[in-house]
């Protein structure tokens, strides 16, 4: 068992992992510097206005308002003190980059990674480790469980589960049916349906052996998923801001529209904390449907084992994403409210400490995504299956947006605890 935890030749991943960790560390420090100066810039402009409001509230004798404004001034003063700045000083460049252009660690890692990979190339010695860096998002997702309580799971997760089921099966059935109608092979149609329906590459890998997809079919399907996911990852956050989509709505929209777990977490994290919290919870519901989509593909293409059975439980066991159980264990512990564990904002508690860690796993994972996006791989996309797959994924994105706008923010907001 212990031996099977290590893939053959696992030592080859070490250089690439170190490279991703180093890249993530540099970018996290750039993000930290930009956010520090952006906060100072905002504080420098806000403090004079707050003093005017404080004078007015004091004159009215409104004690609660005075206390609240004083607290906000203190917070802004601390942000200003960090850079040793004076009231009235400007750091407009930080606001322009961090606020206006949304140049946060997610964007820097993704864009920087793509530029490094495609302009300069990545030495062969790093490639194995870069491939392993992306799944490091999974421990980050587990640790993020400290942000949720059961009421979130029931409300947001329940809504998300319904959304995910409708959209996943709707897309998968449409793509598989259209593929068959337009003469696409069962192998390619099956993995394209699973890939555009659920979790992109993971679903393609899970479904490929079942529908007996050829390596070339996998290259086509993965190329399409990567191309669509990459384009959406960069377009959706800007589209969301342009359409005034709230953070919680964006999280749900990303969880429905973006196919790959890592890419959807990246887009949601880029949009904001509330977006990420909603996206992670709905994604947890979504990825639990992967085994069901594989079973569906087996049924749709009439595949059976020697005994003529579909093998429901064997497929469920083989394809279930077990890491998500860790995420739910932490939600249970957080919901019970044991004093020992505290909470993500309870200073000095275990959950408070864990809350400082998850972002680093995400950063290394995002470095892995950026550095593994190759224009050459995406050129593999093409043919009838590409048109059907990306058409269905696009329709899912538009319909998903309409549905989350109709649902509103409250139903999708993670309250936490």
């Amino acid at each position, binding site marked *: 068992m212990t*031996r*099977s*935890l290590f*893939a053959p030749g696992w030592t080859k991943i070490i250089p690439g992992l170190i490279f991703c960790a180093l890249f993530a*560390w540099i970018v*996290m*420090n750039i993000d*930290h*510097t930009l956010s520090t100066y952006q906060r100072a810039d905002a504080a420098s402009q806000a403090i004079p206005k707050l003093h005017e409001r404080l004078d007015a509230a004091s004159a009215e004798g409104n004690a609660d308002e005075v206390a609240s404004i004083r607290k906000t001034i203190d917070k802004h003063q601390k942000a200003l003190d960090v850079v040793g700045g004076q009231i009235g000083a400007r750091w407009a460049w930080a606001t322009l980059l961090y606020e206006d252009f949304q140049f946060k660690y997610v964007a820097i890692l993704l864009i920087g990674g793509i530029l490094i990979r495609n302009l300069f190339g990545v030495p062969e010695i790093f490639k194995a480790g870069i491939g392993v860096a992306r*799944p*490091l998002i*999974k*421990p980050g*997702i*587990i*640790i993020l469980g400290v942000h949720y309580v059961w009421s979130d799971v029931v409300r947001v997760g329940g809504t998300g589960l319904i959304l995910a089921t409708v959209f996943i099966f709707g897309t998968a059935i449409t793509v598989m049916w259209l593929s068959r109608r337009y003469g696409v092979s069962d192998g390619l149609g099956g993995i394209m349906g699973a890939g555009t329906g659920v979790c992109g590459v*993971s679903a393609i*890998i*899970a479904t490929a*052996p*079942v529908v007996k997809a050829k390596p070339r079919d996998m290259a086509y399907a993965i190329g399409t998923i990567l191309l669509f996911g990459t384009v959406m990852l960069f377009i959706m956050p800007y589209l969301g801001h342009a359409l005034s989509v709230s953070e919680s709505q964006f999280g749900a929209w990303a969880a429905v529209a973006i196919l790959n777990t890592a890419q959807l977490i990246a887009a949601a994290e880029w949009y904001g904390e509330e977006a990420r919290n909603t996206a992670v919870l709905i994604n947890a519901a979504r990825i639990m449907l992967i085994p069901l989509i594989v079973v569906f593909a*087996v049924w749709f293409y009439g*595949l*059976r*084992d*020697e005994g003529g*059975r*579909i*093998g429901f*439980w*064997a*497929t469920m*066991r*083989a*394809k279930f*994403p*077990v*890491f998500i*159980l*860790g995420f739910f264990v*932490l939600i249970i512990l957080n919901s019970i409210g044991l004093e*020992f564990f505290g909470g993500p904002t309870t200073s*000095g*508690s*275990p*959950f*408070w*400490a*864990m809350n*400082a*860690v998850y*972002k*680093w*796993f995400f950063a290394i994972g995002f470095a892995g995504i950026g550095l593994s996006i190759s224009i050459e791989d995406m050129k593999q996309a093409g043919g009838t299956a590409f048109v059907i797959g990306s058409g269905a994924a696009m329709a899912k994105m538009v319909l998903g947006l309409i549905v989350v706008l109709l649902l509103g923010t409250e139903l999708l907001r993670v309250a936490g605890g």
Partner: protein
Amino acid sequence: MSSNAASEEMSNGLSSAKREDIWALIIAGVVMLVSMAAPEIVHDIFAKLLYVF
């Protein structure tokens, strides 16, 4: 189909997705244990020490 799913796991010991999942659980478990033992140190390292500029 059941033989497909089973044979994929048996031939390699664990599928790559399962291996990733188990490692994610191990890593998160280690982070949790260390955070229970020394929360202040973990927080200081990841929220302060690693930010050098």
